[in-house]
């Protein structure tokens, strides 16, 4: 079974600075997707960025980028120029790409609570 581990329960960053959130995962599959989701106090889970395992190039979305190390099974999120609105719980998630009748549900880590200091 696949597992996702986030070892940083809480992180803090100064506004305009850069912060990196860590995530490791375990799988025997060779093809899969990895995601970072943001969950503000409103509870709405918002997709921040996604990475296809077969792509070597790290995904970027504006101020958000990932460092995907497939061999090490590591998938960290870097937030540049942090803004007050970035404060939220961040979840790393894994999804298989199996065919047939597989559900390919999202498997989440336990989350990292990010505080942004003005």
């Amino acid at each position: 079974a696949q597992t996702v581990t986030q070892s940083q329960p809480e992180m803090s960053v100064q506004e305009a600075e850069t912060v990196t959130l860590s995530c490791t995962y375990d799988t025997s599959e060779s093809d899969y997707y990895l995601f970072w989701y943001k969950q503000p106090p409103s509870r709405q889970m918002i997709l921040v960025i996604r990475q296809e395992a077969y792509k070597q190039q790290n995904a970027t979305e504006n101020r958000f980028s990932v460092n995907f190390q497939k061999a090490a099974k590591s998938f960290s999120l870097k937030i540049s120029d942090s803004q007050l609105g970035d404060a939220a719980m961040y979840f790393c998630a894994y999804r298989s790409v199996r065919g047939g009748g597989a559900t390919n549900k999202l498997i989440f880590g336990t989350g990292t609570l990010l505080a942004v200091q003005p």
Partner: protein
Amino acid sequence: GAGVSQSPRYKVAKRGQDVALRCDPISGHVSLFWYQQALGQGPEFLTYFQNEAQLDKSGLPSDRFFAERPEGSVSTLKIQRTQQEDSAVYLCASSFTRDSEQYFGPGTRLTVT
């Protein structure tokens, strides 16, 4: 367009009561997922629908949990004889296909007293 909506946003139930949680997915989305998020934890999969067919219910924690999606759109998650351990946020997500991006609703926070 409208996103995924869930109702009620908050529900308080006395232990032993039955509750029904509703999810309105994005129109045209074939796939619908339910997740349970305990306090301080990440969401955990409960069940999956493709149209009206419930293809995976492996995450339902007990036979007190029941989900349906009779017409392939709105889905209801029912919990019978609620227990304190059922207290959690219940998230619904829909996607155009099984493998496309899942869009989440705001969740229903269930508190069992």
